[in-house]
């Protein structure tokens, strides 16, 4: 009992120190149109045949974290028509590359979202990028 208290307190302080250290890095949040403009390599997700066959259609939204060098470090699928599409999204978006985001003289980590539409029309399955206001009619 006598030793468990300092051990608990020690662990707590370690967690606090880690949280302070990671918070110090900071990141920029970019809108999707800006994020796409910064992309130097894009990979469209495949439409998994099983999903197309099951008519799993609709919007998918992923949240990604990009490191200072412009590489994708983390992809979270926030919304997708099914789990096969989720896997296809992670596979494709992990391979995207971006220009480093410079601000105040240094490169920053970036967070942002990417949207895709999985559509089946006249028996043909395709994946579409969103239309942004400037492109929309």
């Amino acid at each position, binding site marked *: 009992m006598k030793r468990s208290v300092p051990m608990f307190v020690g662990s707590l*302080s370690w967690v*606090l120190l880690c949280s*302070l250290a990671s918070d110090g890095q900071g990141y*920029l949040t970019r809108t999707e149109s800006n994020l796409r403009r910064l992309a130097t390599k894009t990979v469209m997700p495949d439409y998994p045949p099983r999903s197309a066959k099951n008519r799993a259609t609709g919007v998918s939204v992923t949240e990604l974290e990009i490191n200072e060098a412009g590489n994708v470090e983390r992809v979270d699928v926030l919304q997708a028509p099914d789990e096969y599409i989720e896997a296809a999204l992670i596979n494709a978006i992990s391979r995207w590359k971006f220009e480093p985001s410079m601000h105040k003289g240094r490169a920053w980590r970036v967070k942002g979202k990417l949207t895709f539409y999985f559509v089946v029309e006249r028996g043909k399955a395709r994946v579409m990028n969103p239309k942004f*206001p400037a492109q929309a009619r």
Partner: protein
Amino acid sequence: MKNLRDRVELAANIIIIVTVLVCGGILISRYVPGGKRGNDAGRSLRAGANIEMQGVDWGSSHKTFVLAVAPGCDFCAESAPFYRFLSSAVEKNEHLRLIAISPDSSNDPEDYLRQIGVKPNEVKKVSFKAIGIRGTPTLLVADPKGAISKMWVGKLNEVQEAEVLSELRDYEPLVRMTVGDLRRAIESGRKVQIVDVGGRETYAEGHIPGAKNIPADELEARAPQELSAEYPVVLYCGCRNDDLSEIGARILKSGRSDAGNVFVLAGGLEAWKAAGMPKTSKELSKYVQ
């Protein structure tokens, strides 16, 4: 030996406790409002407060942008391209005005503003300390009563620049729709697109029947595909003061040719519930003629 071990243990405990106290202090200073983290400037002058500047008639324009700059300020120079854009945009709009303020100790603020290419409607020398500005650049938006509605301190990032631009677009207030208006629209069989601009979790916890969930930060990408330009869009959130709905409405209005067809549901989800409105689509369908 035992004595030594006890002493070491005591010393370790003291070190751990001190570390925890230091960490706690840093966390509090960072996350508790009024803490010292970040830019210290603007702590006393904040959104909602009134800005006191002699000789300024706030009521002479719908919105007044107040830009605090100081010669020699690096961030002011770095931000100059955006401020140039802001001043040229304000110049074209009779409802808006830009006042540049500089510390009363500065020699020739007009010359400095000319150098960085910013053309405000007025230039004033004021005591930053007296009005509560403690850093440059600081950009404020004041309403016709001189109350600060928005405030940004330091060099603006991309999101903050977008916020400023939305202030330019929306000098006219957003059109609000009451729950009663919405109810009447639904009852009359008018097609209305109701959008919950909150997060997925809050939407899952409860939403207006028939509402589509598009979080505010996804509207730019998703609205052109998922919302029809033919029918009115009513945005709501479960947040305080309809903040997210207003941000969403501004994003939506900037991308639509029929910007007048975008409404904010006053009071959001809470107002809907308080009015005893239906909780399910089945109940709601009874309202439609």
